[in-house]
């Protein structure tokens, strides 16, 4: 159980850090002109030139491999909900690093999600 919890902590830190870096990169990239294949390809090539994207990718890769390890040890209906503890960490990151406005309703929603997640993880 201990090794699963440690791997879970690695998973949460890497996935949240990676997602925040990628969000920052995507905001700098700007949204695609249209949701059509050509515009999406142009969007993708712009995104791939953003260095924040490449900060996020290795972190996401690490979180992906720790997810694979966890999935080989524990059932999916434990692993995925437990990794959702990153919602709290991520919301703080969004507020203080990305400068997003987290309204009362949004916090309430995140908290409900977290209580739900705790219940789900408890089984």
């Amino acid at each position, binding site marked *: 159980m201990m090794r699963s919890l440690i791997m879970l902590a690695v998973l949460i830190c890497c996935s949240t850090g990676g997602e925040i870096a990628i969000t920052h990169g995507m905001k700098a990239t700007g949204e695609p002109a249209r949701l059509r294949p050509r515009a999406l390809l142009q969007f*993708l090539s712009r995104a791939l030139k953003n260095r924040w994207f490449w900060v996020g990718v290795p972190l996401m890769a690490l979180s992906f491999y720790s997810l694979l390890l966890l999935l080989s040890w524990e*059932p999916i*209906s434990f692993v995925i*909900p437990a990794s959702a503890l990153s919602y709290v960490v991520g*919301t703080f990151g969004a507020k203080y690093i*990305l400068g997003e*406005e987290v309204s009362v309703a*949004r916090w309430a929603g995140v908290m409900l999600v977290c209580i739900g997640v705790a*219940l789900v993880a408890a089984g």
Partner: protein
Amino acid sequence: MGHERRLRIKTLVMVLAMVVCANIGDLMLKRGMNEIGPVQISLAGLLHALYLTITNGTIWMGILFLTGFMLSYMTVLSWADYSYVMPAGAFGYALLTFLAVVFLHESVSPRRWVGVILICVGVLLVGQTKPRTTEVVKEATA
């Protein structure tokens, strides 16, 4: 259709695509890892696991769906808040629980079902908030 409304619909459709791809992908990975068996934490064990994962077709199907997830995720984050997309994506837990029950035959306790309901209510609350609270760069037309 109002700008705000259009933004909300666009965001929700993309979040739905994200959730479906992520769930199918995770389910495939779990199947693939079940075929491989528990991984030993040692250099030889990890290398062996790496070899088994890259030669497993189910794992590759999982990776394909997770790539679809990544693309829809990157796209939605180019216009919507991380603190909106992330909890909205938690809607996937409801779907995941059903998938785990139907396809992996895992048993789900009443307490876990209550958790799933709370998650859904939380996601609905977040869904009511503005999808975007920061300035977004419009695509440079060049």
